[in-house]
């Protein structure tokens, strides 16, 4: 399976680069300062450019996919979320997609049973796996904010506490670490397990999954196994957020691997399918109100089309129309 091996090898090579670079070539400034700054800049600029690039393209037509009753007669209840008539209803629809993956929740699985009978069953695994994946990663990222501030922000403490409530290891075991790894494993295996998924998957689908898995694994390794000294890490991260170009101090090599893989992810992000993070807000089938008969939607480039007017038509058919006793404009 070239599609799977290629991205796997890529991630392995990427993980080795900083290891060799820092351990044997003394490139800690490169991997600790130059690359992270570059990655941050590429992520920020790239993400914004992509958003602007989408936003400057017009939305000529009002094309919501209506998944519920439209607003019509007063005595018929309409579906505010699935067929929104007002701005805030459409906003709620988009947010329910962003935070709860509402459309994925609908997912069904079609099966062909005996005597050519099709059956559809509820199939919420992708919804569950996707939700676990995205929410764990979000919480992990937010938790990391403790590295970026001298005073640990309150929400990071709360998250930390909640995430570590199992309290089974030392240092405290984070549930999201396990959840993220489990979810990534699920997301990879579902692509390998099903013939349909195998066909539609591209190397660019495996690559970010492998990359994220590697990032989380190295993080877990640093925290629970190698027990990396945290203070120099925090010092270096504080320097970075304060735009300092000072030399990083003595930090364990694993940290450089973690940081480099995150940098690669950041640089990869704006140019890949990961941009769905921005795209989901803009999707015209989800973020528009279903009110195009009530309120005119304007197309900025509305093409100027010549159509066949009634006069042209009557000119061609006048005699036939007369015979059929149809009223005509010109005799």
């Amino acid at each position: 399976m070239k599609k799977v091996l290629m991205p796997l090898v890529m991630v392995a090579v990427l993980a080795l680069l900083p290891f060799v670079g820092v351990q044997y070539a003394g490139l800690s400034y490169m991997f600790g300062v130059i690359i992270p700054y570059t990655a941050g800049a590429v992520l920020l600029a790239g993400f914004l450019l992509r958003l602007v690039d989408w936003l400057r393209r017009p939305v000529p037509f009002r094309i919501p996919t209506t998944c519920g009753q439209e607003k019509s007669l007063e005595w018929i209840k309409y579906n505010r979320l699935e067929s929104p008539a007002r701005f805030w209803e459409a906003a709620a629809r988009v947010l329910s997609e962003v935070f709860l993956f509402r459309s994925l929740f609908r997912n069904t699985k079609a099966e062909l049973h005996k005597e050519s009978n099709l059956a559809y069953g509820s199939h919420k695994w992708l919804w569950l796996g996707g939700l676990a994946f995205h929410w764990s990663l979000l919480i992990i990222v937010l938790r990391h904010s403790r590295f970026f501030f001298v005073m640990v922000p309150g929400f990071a403490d709360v998250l930390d506490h909640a995430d570590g409530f199992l309290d089974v290891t030392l240092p405290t075991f984070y549930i999201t670490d396990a959840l993220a790894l489990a979810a990534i494993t699920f997301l990879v295996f579902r692509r390998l397990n099903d013939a349909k998924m195998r066909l539609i998957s591209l190397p660019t689908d495996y690559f970010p999954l492998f990359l994220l898995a590697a990032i989380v694994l190295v993080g877990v390794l640093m925290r629970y196994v190698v027990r990396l000294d945290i203070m120099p890490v925090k010092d270096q991260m504080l320097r970075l957020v304060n735009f300092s170009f000072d030399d990083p101090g003595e930090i364990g090599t694993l940290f450089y691997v973690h940081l480099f893989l995150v940098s690669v992810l950041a640089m990869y992000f704006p140019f890949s399918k990961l941009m769905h993070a921005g795209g989901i807000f803009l999707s015209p089938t989800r973020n528009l109100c279903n009110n195009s008969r009530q309120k005119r939607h304007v197309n900025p480039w509305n093409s100027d089309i010549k159509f066949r007017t009634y006069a042209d038509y009557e000119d061609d058919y006048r005699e036939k129309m007369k015979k059929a006793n149809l009223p005509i404009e010109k005799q």
Partner: protein
Amino acid sequence: MAKYAPKLSELKKEFDEKPSVLKGDYAAQEWWDIPVEFHDGNWCFPGKPEVLEDLGFANPRKWTATDQDWQLPAGWQKTISDGLQSRLKKYRSLKLFLDTCVRCGACADKCHFFLGTGDPKNMPVVRAELLRSVYRNDFPLVEKILKGFSGSRKLTEAVIKEWHMYFHQCTECRRCSVFCPFGIDTAEITMMVRELLNLIGVNNNWILAPVSNCNRTGNHLGIEPHTFVQNITSLAEDIEDLTGVAIEPTFNRKGAEVLFITPSGDVFGDPGVYTMMGYLLLFHHIGLDYTISTYASEGGNFGMFTSNDMMKKLNAKMYHEAKRLGVKWILGGECGHMWRVVHQYMNTMNGPADFLEVPVSPITGTRFSNAAATKMVHIAEFTADLIHNKKLKLDPKRNDHLRTTFHDSCNIARGMGMFEEPRYVLRNVCNSFHEMPEDTIREKTFCCGSGSGLNAEEYMEIRMRGGFPRANAVKHVKDRHKVNTLVTICAIDRASLPPLMNYWNPGVSVYGLHELVGNALVMQGEKKRTTDLRENSMAGFEDGGDDEE
């Protein structure tokens, strides 16, 4: 049908032998390696040269899909890539839908063509990848070093053939977009690719001939004004024979309150004509001041399956005629894609309709504020309001010989969101109504398999396969509830579902909603009714028997 569709037993055998929705073994294959094969039943006749010349379309010539050489015009690659670039600039939807797919696979088994063919390229995600793989150049450098990383490929004639096949195995029904976490709508992609294909003369006569007809005569079927009048008049005569009530519809009459526009299939085709009789009875029953136009004599719009510009050109006639006749508002008949155009495109393309008034029902006084800008009301909304206000005298027992189920048409369901009105009307005009399984109706409804201009005889195999999920759901209620009547509010359905039912579920007939309304209406001064509009005996109304039970 025989030549263009496999025998039912063969198809059933295929489903039973490989009881998996994906047919074939692709363990060692990628979708882009699978060759495209045209054979009887899976391609539509291409546009005739004279039709293309009439429309001013590119590359008129004689050719067929099975030809080795499709005689594409010189520089076609540039035409396609420039065409794509300009559409990417004009449509945020296209750009977003090409950019944001993560290939999660939620759409894969949602497409009726995939479920009926088991062909991997009919998974919506792959259908979009057919274009995406050409469009994508995420990492030209990475792609150079690591060939195959981003899954991109060059635009070749083989790709054009593939597009022609698979963008004509999409009926723009939008079912996949319901399930997509980003709302990616394959209909949008199909519409764009069909526009592109038309730029190089790769097309479908079953779409382009109606487009040309509609432009010239005002309707898809190419009915000229006198014949159009004659047809409706003869339907009025049939009504008089059946009910004893004389109905005199008017045509092109200035000063009428309402302009009524319906698909021309209702005027000409069986069983659409019975739906037309239903409209005529209803309008007479309530004394509506309406007129029918021979110029804007088409509700449907095959321009939608050709290009957005063509959609606009054909649609422009509605407002143009409404203005000329000086009507107050427009009432639209039962049709699927017509209503996607009216609901989501018309006012944007050809509005604002300042010369019309916000529609108010002259019978109930209801103000249709949901149509305040477009000024066009759907007949099911109109009739539901009449029934709700008790303005109709109905005898639902007259439909007791019909055990019904309701087919939501794709465009009405997912491009408009009208689910309750037709059901409300149906429940009031008949006594036996059974819903198909939950995952096959409303926003999850399955297409008839022949929408978006694929209703051609020579396309029968694909149509019967694409319609399989719909037919299968009908079979479910047929077996369980003895359903014999499939009610729909779409003219393409009325044309395409009868052969589909004959193939998969013999014994189920297809009806328009307003045909049932017409059956149930108790008209003033009518004679004793024993048969319905099709002249089938009504249960309990047989001659001589006064006992209705």
